[in-house]
C-alpha cells in the first residue's frame, strides 16, 4: 500500500518534472535559435532547413552592424536615454508621488484627480508633436526624455508604496531634526528601494526601447536611438504600408537584410538591457508586487 503510493508519487513528480522541462525548453529555444542564427553564415542559412548547430560560424552579421559608424552613435544615444532619462524620471515620479502621499499637503485630492485625468484621457499625437515643435525640441535628444518623464500610472503606484511607510517614522525623523528634503532622501528613499529599483527598471526599459517618439521628433540620423536605426537598417519597406504602395516599393533596389543580420540585431538590441536584470533581481521581485496588497 505504502509502496504503491510512493511509486505513484514518483511517477507524478517524474512526469511533472518532465513536462516542466519541456515547457521551459519551449521558452528557451527561440532565444537559443536567435543567438545561434546570428552567428551563422548567411549562405548556410538559405541552404539548410533548420539550423541547431551551424557548420560555419560567422561573425559577418556583427561585423556589419558594429562596423557602421552610425551604430555606435545610436548605442550612445540609447545609453544616454536609459541612464539620464531614468534618473530624471525617477526623481520626478518619486518626488511627485511622495508629495501627494503626505497627508497634510493642501489640494492633495485635486492633484490626484488631475493626475488621474492624464491617464484616462490622452491628448494624442498631433498636439504632442506641435508642443514639441513649438518648444524647439525637434532634433533634440531632450524631446525623447521630457515628454515621457513620468506617467500618472507610475505616480499613483509609487504613492501606494509610500503610503505603506508608517507616518510615525517620518515624525521620528523630524524630531531628530530632519528637514523635509532629508526625510525624503534619508528615510523614504532607502525604505522604498525595492520600488525605486522596480520603477527604475521600467523606465530604463522604456527609454532603451524609445522608438515612436524618435521617429516623430528626430530627423537627423546621427541622433537616432538604437531601435530606430535598427528598424531603418533591417525592415524591408515592402512589408509596410501595403496596397498600391507596396506594389511600387517592391521595385526599390534596396537589398533585403539577411535573416542572420536581423537576428544579430535582435541580440544587440536585447542583450544590454537583459544584463541589467540579474543585478536588480532581488529588488525587482519585491518591487513588482508594489500596490498589489495593502495592509
Amino acid at each position: 500500500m505504502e509502496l504503491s503510493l510512493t511509486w505513484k508519487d514518483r511517477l507524478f513528480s517524474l512526469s511533472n518534472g518532465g513536462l516542466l522541462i519541456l515547457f521551459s525548453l519551449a521558452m528557451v529555444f527561440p532565444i537559443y535559435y536567435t543567438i545561434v542564427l546570428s552567428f551563422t553564415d548567411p549562405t548556410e542559412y538559405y541552404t539548410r532547413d533548420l539550423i541547431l548547430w551551424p557548420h560555419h560560424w560567422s561573425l559577418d552579421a556583427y561585423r556589419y552592424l558594429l562596423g557602421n559608424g552610425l551604430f555606435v552613435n545610436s548605442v550612445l544615444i540609447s545609453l544616454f536615454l536609459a541612464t539620464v532619462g531614468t534618473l530624471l524620471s525617477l526623481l520626478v515620479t518619486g518626488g511627485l508621488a511622495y508629495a501627494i502621499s503626505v497627508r497634510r499637503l493642501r489640494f492633495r485630492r485635486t492633484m490626484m484627480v488631475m493626475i488621474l485625468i492624464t491617464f484616462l484621457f490622452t491628448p494624442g499625437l498631433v498636439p504632442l508633436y506641435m508642443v514639441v515643435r513649438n518648444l524647439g525640441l525637434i532634433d533634440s535628444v531632450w524631446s525623447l526624455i521630457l515628454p515621457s518623464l513620468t506617467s500618472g500610472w507610475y505616480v499613483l503606484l509609487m504613492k501606494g508604496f509610500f503610503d505603506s511607510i508608517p507616518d510615525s517614522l517620518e515624525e521620528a525623523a523630524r524630531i531628530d531634526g530632519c528637514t523635509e528634503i532629508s526625510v525624503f532622501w534619508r528615510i523614504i528613499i532607502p525604505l522604498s528601494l525595492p520600488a525605486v529599483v522596480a520603477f527604475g527598471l521600467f523606465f530604463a526599459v522604456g527609454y532603451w526601447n524609445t522608438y515612436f517618439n524618435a521617429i516623430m521628433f528626430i530627423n537627423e540620423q546621427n541622433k537616432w536611438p538604437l531601435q530606430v536605426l535598427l528598424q531603418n537598417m533591417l525592415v524591408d519597406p515592402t512589408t509596410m504600408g501595403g496596397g498600391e504602395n507596396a506594389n511600387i516599393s517592391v521595385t526599390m533596389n534596396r537589398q533585403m537584410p539577411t535573416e542572420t543580420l536581423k537576428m544579430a540585431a535582435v541580440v544587440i538590441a536585447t542583450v544590454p538591457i537583459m544584463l541589467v536584470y540579474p543585478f536588480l533581481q532581488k529588488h525587482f521581485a519585491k518591487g513588482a508586487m508594489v500596490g498589489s496588497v495593502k495592509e
Partner: protein
Amino acid sequence: MKRQAEQSARQWFIKTLVVAVGTSLLLSACGGGGKSGSADSSAPTKIQMQTLNYATEFIDNTNPIWKEFEKRTNTQLDITWLSPTTSEEKINVMLASGDLPEVTFVESLLNPQLQKMIGQGVFWDLTPFIKDYPNLSQPALAEMWTDSKVDGKNYSIPRYYPSYGGGAFPILRKDWMDKLGLQTPTTMDQFFDVLKAFKEKDPNGNGQADEIPYAANSDTMGFVYGVFNGVQGAWKLKDDKLVPTITEEASRDALLWIKKAYDAGLFPKDFAILKYSQTVDLIRGGKSGGTSQSMNHAWVTGSKIREVVPTADYMPITYLQNAEGEKYTPSGSPYYGVYLIPKKVPEAKVKKILEFFDYAYGKEGNELATYGIEGVDYTVENGRKIPTPQAAKDQVGDGNMNNLIHLISDDMSIGAVGMPDDVYNRNVEIVNERKQIKTPNPGNELYSEAYNKYYPEISKKVSDMRTKVIIGKDTIENYDKLIEQLRSDPTLKQVADEMTEAYHKKMESK
C-alpha cells in the same frame, strides 16, 4: 500584436486629425506673413524640402553632390530625409500639425488628409507655371503630369518613376526551364505545367524532390487575380461603371487556380503565413523555381542565387494571358510620390523652387543626382558610366540625392548595381515587350472617401476567406456565400458608385 496596436493607433489618430487640422490651418496662416523669400537675386535661395531616402546612411550638406546641386542651381538646400519604413505616420502628423516644409513630400496623392488640404487650398496650383520650364514640360514627363492632376489641376510636382518594370510578377529560374526543355509560360495553364515540372522532374539534379516550385505567399499571388480578370487593381470597367473585381466570377477562377497549385504542392506549405522577405529567402537559397518580384530583382536577388548556384539564371517573364486572350503585365503610375508647395511660400520663391526641379529633371541635373560628378564619381567608357571609388565615398547611387529626383529612365525599375550586360539587355528587351501591353487599370489614382473608409475591411474579409479556401480550412461554398452577400452589400455598392463617379470626373478632366 504590434501590428494590431499600430492599426488601432492609426485609426484613433485619423480621428484626432480632423480636429487638429482646423486649428493648425489657422496657425499656419498666421505664420505665413512674416517670411519674405525674395531677397537679392544673386544670393542663393534657401529651400526647405523633405523626401524619402532609401539609403542606409543619409547625406548632409557637406556631401559633394549636395554642394554641387547648390552651386549649379544657386540655392541653399535644407533637406530633411525620411526613412521609408516610418515615413507614413510622420508625413500624416506633419500634414495635420501644419508643419509643412516649403517642399512637402507625400507618398501618395490619394492620402485622405492631403486630398482635404488640397480642397481647402493649402497648396499652390502649379498648372499655370509648368509650361515655362522646358525640362518639366518635356515629353518624357507628359504622362506624369496628366496622371497626377486633381480636379484637372496640377497641385504637385510628381516624383518620376517608370511605369513598366515594377510590380510583383513572376521571375523564373531560366536555367531550370532550359534543363527540362520548357518554354517560358504565357498562359496560366502553361505556368501551372512549368511549376509542376519543377516539382516532379528534379531540375536541381540532386536526386531529391526538395524543390519548392514557386516561393509564394498570399500577397505575391495577387497577380493571378489580375490575369484572370484581365485588369490591374481592384476595379473593372463594365458598361461604363466600375465594379469591384473581388465579386467577379473571374476572381473565383483565379482562387481555384491558386488552390489547385497549392494542393499540387507547388507552393511552400506555410504559404499562408510566410512574409515577403521569407519568400525571397527561399529563392536565394537556390531551392525555389521563382517568385513574384519587380524586374530589377533579376539581378538584385538573382546575384544572390548565384552565390549558391553559380549557373542560376533568374528571368522575369513578359506577360500571362487569360482564357479570353487578354494579356496581363504589371504597370504603375509614371510617378511615385508628389512634392507640394504650401501657399505660405511667396510666388517668387515658388518659381525658384520650380527652377530647381526644372534643373533636376533636366539631363544634367538628373545625371548628377544619380551618377554624381563626371570625372570625379564616374568616367565614361564606350558610352557607359563607370563609377570610380570616389562614388561610394560620395554616397552616389541608390538613395540620397537620387531619391529626391529619380533618373528619367527604365533603369530605375529594371537595372541594378553590378548587373551584367546580358541580364540588362534581356531586361530591356522584356520591358519593351511589356510596354506593348496595356493592361487596363481603371481604378488607378481615383479618390473616394467611401473607398478609404469601407473598402479595406471588405477586402480583408475576402482575402482571409481566400486564404482559408486555399489551405483547405474553409470550403468554396462558404466563399460563394460571402461573395453573394457582398454583391448585395450596400456599403460596397456605395464605394463602387463613388469610384465610378471619380472615374468619370477624371476622364472628363483629361
